[in-house]
């Protein structure tokens, strides 16, 4: 019996793009309330697997079980509705919109009839302030445009958006790849805060120190396959590197 319940279970997932087999028979699971990391070399299939979970790609074979139910997402918004939020590598923020507009993008609070939906801007600004305050994110103002924010602040806004709206699982693809030392530290704190708030986090990272420091569970991918899974406290960065390169057989 496991310590806590599996929130996400990926069973025998396979996906090909034309003749390229991006994923073959991948199985892994994510426990509720934990930070789970997926590591691997470039092109190992890390991003592809999270894109399947986020509803961007549809797997050719295999099942994705989320919160006890087999899910079959066709579009990203379906994954969002189910409680899976993704912080994309490119952050998916619209630079010329304000922080609050980005936080509520395609989830605007509105009233009206049928397709005519009038925005409730005041309410959204207020809730955006609450969301930002809850995660103690250092954003100048929710009414400033994203264009005026630093890299770390943008990352914080993207994470804030993912953490809001009672999401159960937050997927992060290389959240600190483009950040400086201080900003990386802040984002890591934010990720830990997500866990303490009860969100499960699925983290893709190249930074082994970060993975060992933050995560509870590590999955290793190589050439489209999930070759090993380790509890973070039972492994070392050395072993993980060996598993990634294939020096250590899984």
């Amino acid at each position, binding site marked *: 019996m496991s310590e806590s319940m599996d929130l996400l279970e990926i069973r025998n997932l396979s996906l090909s793009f034309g003749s390229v087999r991006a994923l073959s028979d991948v199985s892994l699971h994510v426990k509720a309330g934990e930070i789970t990391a997926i590591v691997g070399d470039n092109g190992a299939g890390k991003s592809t697997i999270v894109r399947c979970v986020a509803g*961007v790609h549809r797997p050719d074979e295999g099942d994705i079980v989320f919160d006890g139910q087999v899910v079959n997402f066709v*579009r*990203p*918004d*379906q994954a*969002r509705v189910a409680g899976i939020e*993704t912080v*994309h590598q*490119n*952050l*998916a*923020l*619209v*630079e*010329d*919109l304000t922080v609050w*507009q980005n936080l509520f*993008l*395609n*989830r*605007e609070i*509105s009233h*009206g009839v049928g*397709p*005519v*939906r*009038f*925005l409730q801007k005041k309410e959204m600004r207020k809730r955006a302030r609450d969301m930002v305050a809850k995660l103690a994110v250092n954003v100048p103002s929710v009414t400033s445009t994203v*264009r005026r924010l630093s890299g770390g602040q943008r990352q914080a806004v993207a994470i804030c958006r993912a953490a809001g709206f009672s999401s159960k699982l937050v997927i992060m693809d290389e959240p600190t790849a483009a950040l400086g030392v201080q900003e990386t530290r802040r984002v890591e704190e934010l990720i830990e805060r997500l866990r303490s708030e009860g969100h499960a986090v699925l983290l893709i990272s190249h930074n082994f120190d970060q993975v060992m420091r933050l995560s509870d569970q590590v999955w290793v991918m190589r050439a489209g396959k999930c070759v090993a899974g380790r509890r973070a406290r039972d492994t070392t960065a050395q072993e993980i590197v060996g598993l990634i390169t294939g020096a250590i057989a899984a």
Partner: protein
Amino acid sequence: MTATESVGERVRVTLTRPTFWVEWASVVGLVLLVVLFTALDSTFLSAGNIRGMLLASAILTILVVGQAFVILTAGIDLSVASVMTFAAVMFGLAMTHGYGILLSCLVAFCAGAAVGLLNGVLVAKGRITDFIVTLGALSAASGTALILSDGKPITVISAPLFELSAGSVGVVPYTFMIALLIAVLAHVVLFKTKFGTHVLATGGSVEAAQATGIRTTRIKIAVYAISGSLAGIAAILLVARVGSAEPAANMTFLLNSVAAVVLGGVSLFGGKGSIKGPIFGALLLTALSNGLTLLGVSQFYQPLAVGVVVVGAAFLTRFDK
């Protein structure tokens, strides 16, 4: 003393902020032109001339609103003027076949909307470059207008239509009121509704919009449909003004619609801009040609002046990041 200094300081800060010029270029330009032309000819600001300018700007204003929506999604609609011509001919044919004024207006509107919709579907679903699709539509719509009308103007005699083009409240003609109403509606749609936010998001970053589940293909189809529909409405005003449906090219309307949107501070890369800016851009271009005519400058100089003004505006807004 300190109060005036701080006001002066604030003005200085505002004027040196690059975004100020992007947002207000068309308004400042219009004011400068009005001052210049009034100084050169006092009749420029006479009631009759103001009325004339508003009358002349109504059609362009309506086209500009549609063009603004398309450019806000980082697209471009080169077919607006030709679609208007096509819709005008359809309107004329409907009138000559005894459809009556209301039904004929509906025909014009639907003709414009249909071409716009087709543009949108080809751009969004067919994944053909907007430039090519609407360039093709420009040619196809003009050609169809020529075929349907056999290249000859269709005279349209209608009392309500005459009333529409001739009537006004004070110095404000009915047609300009229609244009203003459309502009206000467009502003509300863009900035007060969910759809408007999604238009801006699609123009700002297609990837980001899609990642949040916004169906960007639908948004793109919608903006081209809006542009086409407005060209259909503009066609009715055009026929009312000219008194006939002519299969003429109306190329100046196309160039001016893009020019007004750029003057109005809408980014050609999409995602940023307003409706009021382009409207003032349209008024500016109308005032420019009106003022030059008033001063007795040859018509040949007007396209040259428009070109200089547009590039000048682009110069003012180039710092925008």
